[in-house]
């Protein structure tokens, strides 16, 4: 078991290096000069050269990469061109906001998803199954940014129950767990939970239906196991996979929150990325993506390891 976990972790290192390389190359994919956003349009060639040297853009790519990676490993992701603040600080604050939102969304999605999945799988091929499955198809098909707008239209614009955007008075700097702030979290979290809800419901439905159709279930029933006992048995078998899917979905939400954060002006990584893209703040773009992608990789490994510990059968060679 320990060897398996060690292996899984070591196999991740090349992937992480690759991820870092892709993040690094993003900057050089940009058709415009990396300095275009800081330089005035009439900057002299001389000033341009000086800045190129200052930022290290005059060195060969591989050298830039090694230096960048070395600094990144020490927690230095460079300086934001827009705010002149260290990228790490900007990213850290945004990540914690996004994490709060995505964790809540994943939790909602997990609860609803397992509920619908269980119901659909348990009443396999009945009208209940059809309804529950339809809900999950809607969940994976709905453009979530649009759903966010619709919720804003209903609950903010029309009913006025909840605030449409932002993170409450004082922004995320003055976050408190009171209604004034938490109410800002509700709409984006519900919007965001729709995708994991759909995916978890699909997974759980398939697992439950398959499990219940197996012969040993009939055997358990024949032995006089109560419906509650059977339910317990199903939960025990479905839980590891459902939890694993939930973990992966959390990762997707962290990386995919940009659209929803834009709709709700939630001060997370999405909004940060959005600003970075449109103001061509490449160090921030690079740093945010690096942190999010690494988080996703680590989360994947963690889920794999946890799943193996819960259910050693999934151990892959």
């Amino acid at each position: 078991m320990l060897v398996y976990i060690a292996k899984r972790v070591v196999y991740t290192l090349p992937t992480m290096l690759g991820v870092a390389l892709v993040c690094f190359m993003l900057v050089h994919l940009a058709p415009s000069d990396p300095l275009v956003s800081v330089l005035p349009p009439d900057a002299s060639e001389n000033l341009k050269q000086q800045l190129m040297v200052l930022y290290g853009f005059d060195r060969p790519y591989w050298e830039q990469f090694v230096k960048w990676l070395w600094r990144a490993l020490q927690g230095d992701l460079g300086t934001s061109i827009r705010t002149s603040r260290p990228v790490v600080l900007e990213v850290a604050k945004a990540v914690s906001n996004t994490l709060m939102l995505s964790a809540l969304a994943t939790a909602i999605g997990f609860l609803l998803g397992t509920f619908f999945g269980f119901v659909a799988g348990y009443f396999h091929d009945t009208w209940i199954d059809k309804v529950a499955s339809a809900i999950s198809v809607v969940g994976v098909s709905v453009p979530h940014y649009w759903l966010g707008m619709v919720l804003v239209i209903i609950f903010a614009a029309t009913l006025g129950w909840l605030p449409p955007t932002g993170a409450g008075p004082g922004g995320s700097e003055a976050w408190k767990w009171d209604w004034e702030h938490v109410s800002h979290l509700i709409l984006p979290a519900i919007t965001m939970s729709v995708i994991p809800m759909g995916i978890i419901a699909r997974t759980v439905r398939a697992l439950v239906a398959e499990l219940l159709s197996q012969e040993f279930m009939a055997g358990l029933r024949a032995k006089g196991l109560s419906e509650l006992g059977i339910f317990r048995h199903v939960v025990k078998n479905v839980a590891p996979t459902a939890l694993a899917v939930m973990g992966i979905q959390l990762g997707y939400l962290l990386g995919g929150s940009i659209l929803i954060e834009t709709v709700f002006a939630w001060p997370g990584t999405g909004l940060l990325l959005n600003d970075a893209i449109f103001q061509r703040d490449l160090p921030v773009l690079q740093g945010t993506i690096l942190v999010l992608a690494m988080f996703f990789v680590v989360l994947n490994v963690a889920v794999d390891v946890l799943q193996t510990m819960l259910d050693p059968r999934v151990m892959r060679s």
Partner: protein
Amino acid sequence: MPADTAMPAPAAEINSGHRLLEVTSLVKHFPIKSGLFGRAGAVVRAVDGVSFAVDAGETLGIVGESGCGKSTTARLIMHLIAPDSGSVRLFGKAAGTLDLPMKTYRSRVQMVFQDSYASLNPRMTIEDSIAYGPMVHGVGSGEAIRRARQLLDRVGLDPARFAGRYPHELSGGQRQRVNIARALALEPRMLLLDEAVSALDKSVEAQVLNLLLDLKEEFGLTYIFISHDLEVVRFMADRVMVMYLGRVAEIGPTEALYTDCRHPYTQALLGSLLSMDPDRRTETAPLAGDPPNPIDPPSGCRFHTRCAFAEAMCSSRTPALEATNPGHEAACHMTDLASGHSKARQHSQEAAR
């Protein structure tokens, strides 16, 4: 037969008794994906120095527990996998040389696999599957289809009913007949039957076995018949080879081997079979447990860990195949008077009786 242009078969080759296939010191080790910190170089010794010959017109049975290397041997003969060392010669010629191009070799030697469904392309009709081989060898599609239908008829499947069907519409026995027809479509000299009837019901199995015997006669075929079922092998084979952990334990004429076997492993195998019959009860204990791991096979005689007669020397010295009677060989220290095994004398005296 258009496929023959590369190598016309002289009359001598068809005569039975002529040496058809010769397998010499065949070795195949499969490397295992090394772990995190090495253990690199760990291998499964699937086939570890196997030699035998097959004469034209005979049926050689190969028996042994799963994992003994039977199937690997078949795939090596078919050149589906490359051996690490050793050679396979047909009419004294190695396949893949100018004398015997691989493509020609593969029209001479054909194989029928165990899983009748998996060995047919699910997207091809039966007749297309059978015609595919000849077409690869340059037979025109019309002629290939015509031949396919003839063969379907020959293996007992009405072409009108079956030629245009897909594999999933047939029963296991019908599919295996198709596989036999497919193998015969290239007009081979030799058929490798790798557990070809093992997955079939007993009644269907008997029908297919009889079909195989008829076809052998009609087309002058030579069979290598691989099975774990000793009764079936006894019914089919002229000679039998017993394999254990990648090596030949014993080889000899079927009747001699079944009535007077020399290797304790063969004894044990037969023991598990004969114990069903009260008149022929043996003293031999049935085989206990699974065969040892072929990644790290026992030293010396590979059977010594499960052998009732094992002595200290058995774990240190590897017995060679020794003739006990003409045409009957066994790899056991007890058959060799000079080996120093305490039972060696007694055993050979028994044999002399």
